[in-house]
């Protein structure tokens, strides 16, 4: 009883400590689980849902040399106003919207359009174990601002995704 009374008398201090703890370790783990664009490949998916952590971990199992990590995000991640989208490496976008992004995106191979990663008619596609696609076809592109166009890491990760179940 006395312990509870003491705690309630300094409740603001205990709540402040909780908030400080969440903020501090959030910052530390963001630092630990992120790195500079040159050491990571970022995949953006314009899809209803994606198991981002599991997919990133699967892609990291066979990472191109020189990379520290692979990150997978939905487009919602970009809504926080970062310039991350401009530096994205691999993009998966629905057919109805790819015209909106085509000026920022590059085909996997010159002279071609995006690579179809999901066929709505058959329900077959790449990485369906991780990505929940919508009711239309989806295409994959490389980001025009990617720093991994020359070293081939963006293309290597894109091909890994295409080979995923």
């Amino acid at each position, binding site marked *: 009883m006395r*312990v509870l009374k*003491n*705690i309630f008398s*300094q409740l603001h*201090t*205990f709540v402040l*400590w*909780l908030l400080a*703890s*969440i903020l*501090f*370790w*959030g910052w*530390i*783990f963001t630092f*630990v*689980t992120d790195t500079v664009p040159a050491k990571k490949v970022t995949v953006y998916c314009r899809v209803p849902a994606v198991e981002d*952590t*599991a997919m*990133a*971990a699967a892609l*990291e199992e066979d990472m191109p040399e020189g990379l520290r*990590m*692979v*990150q997978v995000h939905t487009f919602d991640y970009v809504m926080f106003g970062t310039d991350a989208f401009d530096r994205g490496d691999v993009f998966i976008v629905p057919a109805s919207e790819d015209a909106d992004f085509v000026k920022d995106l590059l085909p996997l191979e010159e002279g071609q359009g995006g690579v179809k990663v999901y066929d709505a008619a058959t329900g077959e596609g790449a990485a369906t174990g991780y990505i929940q696609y919508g009711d239309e076809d989806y295409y994959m592109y490389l980001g025009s601002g990617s720093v991994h166009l020359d070293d081939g890491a963006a293309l290597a990760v894109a091909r890994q995704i295409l080979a995923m179940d």
Partner: protein
Amino acid sequence: MDAQIVELYTDADMERMDRRVRRWRIGLGSLAAAALAVCVTLAATADTLTAQRMELAAVAVSTLAGWIVLYGAMFVVSPVRREMAHAAMLRREERQRFPGEIAVTGQRVAIRRSVVTRRVEVTGEEGVSRLLVSESQAAALAAARPIALYACHGYVAAYEVDA
């Protein structure tokens, strides 16, 4: 009849309080260091797949350990340190004798950044003197049935009893 002066805070009391503070400081410091080591290990071993769980664990460990350390510091170490400072002042400063009928009242007086006290009234030939005694010593003082008090700056430092 001989009178005997009893100090509220003896050398043994000072030593006991000092030991208690040191023990708690070591305990709380060890807990904080252990929690920090666990959290750093969690952060260092985190990978993409485990990062979220590790972060949750680090927040839980640091929050719980922090709460225990804060509680210990605020409600155990700090009051004992304040009492030690109060006792050191009582032992150091010059005292005044207050003979008369002594009553420890139930009135509690909390002094900011110092000890919690109880009001003591001494009814003597010169009227009623109002003094304060540390709450931790109030029961002992009341039970001793003193015939006079020794106080400095209004705080009881010792009492006199018939031997």
